[in-house]
């Protein structure tokens, strides 16, 4: 039963990244609370819906668009990106090539889609399969905060669809940024300024969310 004073938001979110990084698994975990190591490869786009009781007055409905990893090579992404409000870009921490592809996905996204106010859509970076114990990031000494800042991500999370790590947190982070950009569409949205926080624990590492 919907209360009279309840607000409802509907957001279209994209989930993109190279093939086999776990986009479908993340969505299945988030929406259906389960995991299988044997999801079939996504063809074209898969669609899912998640309803969040954001706060006492607000219901957020998320349309999750799970876009096949191979699509960047075809020209179909433009059609799928249309009217999206936010994006997750996913890579697999065990495969360095999928991290290298992150910037290409981000460029693809920003070149084909901007918010009505002309800004790029908020994007959160997901370092998936963090349960596997093989960490490309640490090995390469890549500074993730720096990387996010340079490439315009509003935050990043180490996630595991298998162990259910950080997926809800990542989603809340993205939604928060979307709501912020919506409620204040004229003023420039600069949550991209990342405050250094040297002592933050590795798991909760959405740098931009420290704003709140």
């Amino acid at each position, binding site marked *: 039963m919907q209360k009279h004073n309840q607000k409802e938001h509907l957001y279209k979110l994209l989930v993109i990244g190279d*093939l*086999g990084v776990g986009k479908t698994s993340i969505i299945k975990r988030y929406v259906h609370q389960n995991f299988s190591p*044997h*999801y*079939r*490869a*996504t*063809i*074209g*786009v*898969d*669609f*899912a*819906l998640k309803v969040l009781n954001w706060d006492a007055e607000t219901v957020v*409905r998320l*349309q999750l668009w799970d876009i*096949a*990893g*191979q699509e960047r*090579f*075809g*020209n*179909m992404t433009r*059609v799928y990106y249309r009217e999206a409000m936010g994006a997750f870009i996913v890579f697999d921490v065990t495969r360095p090539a999928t991290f290298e592809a992150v910037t290409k996905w981000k460029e693809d996204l920003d070149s084909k889609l901007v918010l009505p106010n002309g800004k790029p859509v908020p994007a959160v970076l997901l370092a998936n399969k963090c349960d596997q114990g093989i960490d490309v990031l640490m090995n390469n000494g890549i500074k993730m905060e720096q990387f996010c800042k340079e490439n315009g991500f509003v935050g990043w999370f180490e996630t595991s669809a298998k162990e259910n790590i950080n997926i809800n947190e990542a989603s809340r982070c993205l939604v928060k940024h979307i709501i912020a950009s919506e409620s204040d569409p004229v003023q420039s949205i600069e949550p991209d300024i990342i405050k250094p926080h040297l002592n933050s624990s590795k798991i909760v590492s959405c740098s931009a969310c420290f704003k709140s």
Partner: protein
Amino acid sequence: GYLPANVDRRESTLQRKRKEYFAFVEQYYDSRNDESHQDTYRQIHIDIPRMSPEVLRLQPKVTEIFERILFIWAIRHPASGYVQGINDLVTPFFVVFVCEYIEEEEVENFDVSSLPEEVLHNIEADSYWCMSKLLDGIQDNYTFAQPGIQKKVKMLEELVSRIDEQVHRHLDQHEVKYLQFAFRWMNNLLMREVPLRCTIRLWDTYQSEPEGFSHFHLYVCAAFLVRWRKEILEEKDFQELLIFLQNLPTVHWGNEDISVLLAEAYRLKFAFADAPNHYKK
């Protein structure tokens, strides 16, 4: 198929084709870890555990065979290379050939590696050539930007707008785009939408129909969509519609359902084929 019409020459052709395939394997398969080919190989390697049916694809022997088939095909067809979805298209042939040696009911929990090596070799080569033949007819589905699929999705939309305006309008009103659900119908030839046994039944007809995979398939897709008109018209929002269309309830489908579908597709084809403007407003 790829066998000659003359029955006497079939066996020798079959032998020659099998030899030819393994000559390709000999020639190309070692290059799978070369820099220029490793992306293709890696991609195939990732995709193979992600196809259906589950029981078959998890067997190392099957993985090995599928990897070879797909890699050789990709290397020999550089215009398209390997595209996701092609991996699925090997399965029906492979299963049919395996079923020559076992009871059909067994296929779900059959250990493929229990077949003699020579039999497996023949199955592998025959599956390759069948898949190859199939793909020859629909190559533009898998070249850059997949123009064949884009075109067929457009044609499907036009066809449905003529045969069932109500369904078409309903989808349009709720902003459901055909590409959002029918891309996969074209890319995987309905394999993802119906159980494997139904795919095999469906493809039997496609093979006996001229341009079955490239042309008749369109009418089958139209009939398939309209088959759900009642459910579609009952759904009143975009979300529910799309989730329904991407997860059509066909788990219990059997031959009977495919026969009905095909009959309807034939009806559409004949109503439409000689009169392309017949339904136009």
